């Protein structure tokens, strides 16, 4: 179920939050609206944690994680690291990495089984990713962009990539990740998918600028619509539509 929200009048949700199947990280905003939007949807299922990373609010782009672990840049302070370790469940391994490319959210995109990384990432970091997150790591580019973490968002059920991705690239990525992929946009044509939205296996949060078309694409590719209504729509479509234009 996709929800449209804003962080302090900014539609880039993926920058200020990180959503996974096991936890949700939210930036500390001036008002509690952003946090309460997440809390109302998720608080009874997974922990929603308010945090900062290195004193900044752009936590979604700095960290990367899935249900097995969370990777943080070297700029994370000891207090923030301890706060995250205390708030997150024990199965989630919290690890700080020493890596030249410190915006891990822009360099790495992952779900619970596979990760795509920036081609220039260190070998040691790659091994740490495979170890902490428990994923298979692939060095890839998306539509010629090396920042794979920003230009695609994928979960265990589907993925959305940069709109200018060619069909061959799309097929290649689809076979690598083993999930259906769609090239699309978010927030009224923004190409930076992962910065504009955040998604897990059952919910998605998008910027309030996202059009209804974009939202329906997101809901269909990530399979967020409940099973039954979709089946009903499919059945009714044959009777409702008599000719395709």
């Amino acid at each position, binding site marked *: 179920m996709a929800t449209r929200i804003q962080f302090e009048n900014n539609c880039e949700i993926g920058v200020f939050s990180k959503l996974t199947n096991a936890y949700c990280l939210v930036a500390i905003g001036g008002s509690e609206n952003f946090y309460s939007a997440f809390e109302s949807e998720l608080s009874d299922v997974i922990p929603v944690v308010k945090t900062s990373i290195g004193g900044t609010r752009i936590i979604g782009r700095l960290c990367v994680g899935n249900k097995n672990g969370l990777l943080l840049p070297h700029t994370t302070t*000891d207090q923030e690291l301890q706060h995250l370790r*205390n708030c997150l469940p024990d199965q989630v391994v919290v690890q700080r990495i020493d890596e030249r490319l410190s915006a891990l959210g822009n360099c790495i995109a992952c779900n619970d089984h596979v990760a795509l990384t920036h081609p220039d990432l260190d070998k040691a970091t790659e091994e740490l990713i495979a170890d902490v997150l428990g994923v298979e790591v692939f060095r890839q580019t998306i539509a010629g962009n090396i920042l794979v973490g920003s230009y695609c968002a994928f979960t265990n059920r589907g993925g959305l990539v940069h709109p200018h991705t060619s069909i061959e690239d799309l097929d290649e990525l689809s076979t690598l990740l083993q999930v259906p992929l769609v090239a699309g946009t978010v927030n009224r044509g923004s190409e930076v998918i992962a910065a504009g939205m955040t998604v897990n296996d059952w919910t998605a949060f998008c910027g309030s600028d996202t059009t209804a078309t974009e939202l329906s694409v997101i809901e269909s590719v990530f399979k967020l619509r409940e099973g039954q209504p979709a089946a009903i729509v499919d059945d009714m479509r044959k009777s409702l539509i008599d000719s395709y234009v």
Partner: protein
Amino acid sequence: MRLEKCWFCSSTVYPGHGIQFVRNDAKVFRFCRSKCHKNFKMKRNPRKVKWTKAYRCLHGKDMTQDSTFEFERKRNRPERYDRNVTEQTLKAIPLITKIRHERQKKHITNRQKQGKTKERERDAKELEQDIQMLPKKDVMLSTQKTKVVVKVSQQQTEENLMEET
């Protein structure tokens, strides 16, 4: 807030002190004061500059490997907060620093002990070879007769005395 180490001299940089330099390859260099910063800008190698910790550890002047250093290592995988563990850690910290300082002092005294034994050897050799250089008065002292104590049993002497009289 974190107490960092100066890249040049390895002393602690407290908040509000020093300069941080970030190079183009994203490596951060922290300096405790302008002395270290200026030495760095002159491209001096801290391993060759006598007053730095790097030089002293490299040349064996200061203690390098010890288990007390392991306590201060930077950890990237934190543990969940436990009040008892924190309390015991806080109690242990001054003990560990005291032990580390004692060991460092011991290392330096052991290093300087070798100098003492060498000095004694040199002195003994000098006594052996150059004894004629000393004035006569001091030489006499060495050849003086030493008192020898002889133990005499009390009973025998008393008997002798009795016999004589």
